[in-house]
């Protein structure tokens, strides 16, 4: 029997996802029509013998999360629980804290998935390769190839080419270590808890003090406190994937992830994509339209567009590489390119909402999506995906270019390369 743990973090995290994460916990932000962690759950449910999914984080219990869990349980017919950390415990602290819940029912091993990555996770393959590891192996790390330059912003792994044992691990090194990078997806055997206990106790010991101004920390960092000590001990192994994988930490990444998840729907047939037909809007490439959305037959959508619940798309509207969230209205003749239109926002007639993608260079093998800094060195906003927050009114005939609009704004004119508070 297997389990899966999805680390969903908490409200202090996901700041690079603002203003979208102001409205909804970031792991619930919909990509390709479904919350980010829905895709993780869907991947977990492909693994035979996986019986329970545990979400660990430090969000206060909330409606959105509860509703999501209930509907996902019903859809996937699997037990899903949310276990709340009493404070932010670090990437591995929550796993240690809830060890009894995780170990109940004696799972042979369990997956750990970070919620801020997306991809076509080969969980069954990981499990198969984990089973081939020698006895006493503690874990398998999913890894992928990056460029030399980009590898420095990830956890870097040096492996034994034959045994796939992790020989060395460095988290975001300053100098080049390896182009093989940690995907933030793991498979652990229960033996991991010995390592976690050791790390927990030593961290506690080191940080313990009697100064009430400096609270003691009970944090365990999975990368630094667990992976680095295990590397080179013959207990940690690598499973390399060549499938789609990316970080999902910014709005720009949501557009990129949207495209790839739609491609997965297309390939696997797991979700019904929009088709061309008489009296239907023109569809180019992969487009997902929620059944409750109303799209005028003269609209042209795609490639890589997701239309959410109850969205209204008017006459002659053009959408490309964009996500339109629940309840938004796109009035006649407007044009939306490389943008996210927030919940219940309205785009006026003949308006143009346009962003700039930061896609990885297609000519560089293994290039990953970069998360560019928000501002240039001279203080200007870097061109990126345009994000229209929730309940924003964009008037008619304007252009909103490379901008971020915070929620509940009633815009009066054109904006370019601006954050609109």
């Amino acid at each position, binding site marked *: 029997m297997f389990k899966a743990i999805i680390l969903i973090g908490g409200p202090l995290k996901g700041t690079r996802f603002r203003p979208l994460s102001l409205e909804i916990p970031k792991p619930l932000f919909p990509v390709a029509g479904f919350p980010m962690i829905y895709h993780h759950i869907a991947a977990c449910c492909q693994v035979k013998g996986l019986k329970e999914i545990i979400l660990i984080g430090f969000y206060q219990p909330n409606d959105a999360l509860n509703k999501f869990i209930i509907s996902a349980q019903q859809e996937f017919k699997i037990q899903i629980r949310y276990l709340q950390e009493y404070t932010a415990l670090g990437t591995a602290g929550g796993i240690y804290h809830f060890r009894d819940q995780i170990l109940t029912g004696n799972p042979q091993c369990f997956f750990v998935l970070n919620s801020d990555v997306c991809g076509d996770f080969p969980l069954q393959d990981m499990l198969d390769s984990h089973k081939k590891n020698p006895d006493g192996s503690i874990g398998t790390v999913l890894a992928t190839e990056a460029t030399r330059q980009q590898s420095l912003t990830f956890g870097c792994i040096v492996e034994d080419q034959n045994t796939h044992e992790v020989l060395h691990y460095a988290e975001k090194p300053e100098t080049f270590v390896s182009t093989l990078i940690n995907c933030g997806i793991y498979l652990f055997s229960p033996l991991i808890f010995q390592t976690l206990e050791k790390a927990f106790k030593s961290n506690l010991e080191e940080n313990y003090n009697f100064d009430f101004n400096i609270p003691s920390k009970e944090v365990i960092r999975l990368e630094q406190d667990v992976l680095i000590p295990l590397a080179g001990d013959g207990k940690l192994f690598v499973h390399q994937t060549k499938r789609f994988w990316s970080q999902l930490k910014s709005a720009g990444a949501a557009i990129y992830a949207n495209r790839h998840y739609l491609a997965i729907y297309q390939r696997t047939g797991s979700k019904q994509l929009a088709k061309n037909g008489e009296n239907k809007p023109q569809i180019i490439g992969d487009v997902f339209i929620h059944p409750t959305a109303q799209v005028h037959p*003269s609209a*042209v959508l795609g490639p890589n567009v997701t239309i959410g619940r109850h969205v209204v798309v008017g*006459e*002659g509207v*053009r959408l*490309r590489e964009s996500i339109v969230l629940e309840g938004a209205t796109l009035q*006649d*003749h407007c*044009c939306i*390119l490389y943008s996210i239109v927030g919940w219940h926002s309205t785009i006026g*007639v*003949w308006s*143009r909402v*346009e962003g700039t993608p930061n896609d990885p260079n297609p000519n560089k093998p293994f290039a990953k999506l970069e998360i560019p800094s928000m501002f240039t060195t001279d203080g200007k906003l870097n061109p990126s995906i345009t994000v229209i927050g929730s309940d924003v009114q964009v008037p008619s*005939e304007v*252009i909103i*270019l490379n901008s971020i609009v915070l929620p509940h704004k009633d815009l009066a004119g054109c904006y*370019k390369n601006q954050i609109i508070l």
Partner: protein
Amino acid sequence: MKALILVGGYGTRLRPLTLSTPKPLVEFANKPMLLHQLEALAEAGVSHIILAVSYRAEQMEKELKHVEEELKIKITLSVEPEALGTAGPLAFARDLLNQDTDPFFVLNSDVICEFPFKDMIQFHRHHGKEGTIMVTKVEEPSKYGVVVYDVENGQIKQFVEKPQEYVSNKINAGLYIFNTSILDRIELKPTSIEKEIFPVMAADVQLFAMELKGFWMDVGQPKDFLTGMCLYLNSLKQKNPSLLHEAGSGIVGNVLIDSSAKIGSNCRIGPNVTIGPDVVIEDGVCIKRCTVLRGAHIKSHSWLESCIIGWRCTVGNWVRMENVSVLGEDVIVKDELYINGGRILPHKSISQSVPDPQIIM
């Protein structure tokens, strides 16, 4: 009576349009700029018009053949071997102007207004001196040459070029009437009539100013071309509203549409739009404050404001163009692009947005 029109050189300020067509032949409100002046002159009884040109005379001559017949006037091209400024061309055409003793008109070719030539003749005859200059009131006189004159009788006292402090809000409108005796003041060499001839005439009490009624615009560059078009259409509405397209069914405000143009459904055209012959506007297009020249094709759902679309251009679906963008002849703008203040040279195919004003060679 005769008139001399200072057509001049390359019309660089109106590029990229003037790379394909001499400036006087560029259509302003669906009629070559020059024809506005020729018609008004013919109407006022002028029978012989001299065009002072230094460039592309052949093309002009060819195009103007039928105009001579239609308006029953004689057009002579006075082709200068070199640019002679604003006064030199008068000296160069001296023999033509001296054929009789009637006063003659001199016009800057870039000027658009209601051309009150009959009133000018009357005013000129009334004061009996050598020259009359039309003046027009402007908001920002510091950009122009200002004329200071006696409001009672029109006698000009002084010219002040680009005044730093306010002296008057009347500027030279580029329309004159002169007695042939002015020719004695001008030598055959590059000379500025405003700077070298007028001040002397004013000192001799030979120059009078008459204030122009109605609108006036120098339409020699794209921004002013569009402003001038708005003023012209507004004047047309007062004087000859039947020429404008009737409002309703997607037409807003003053709009001039050639009868051969085709307009799709669910469009919003206007205010202040001119659409030339054989233009095709597809469904769901919004056009405001633009001139669309002959044979252009604007595809569905595009939005254009303050643009000049050159002859036989194609603008793709969902294109947004604004901020005095000018497309030269036969430019193609691909679907879904944004053109902000772009000046695009003829025969280009644009496949990337132009987000900031620039010239695309």
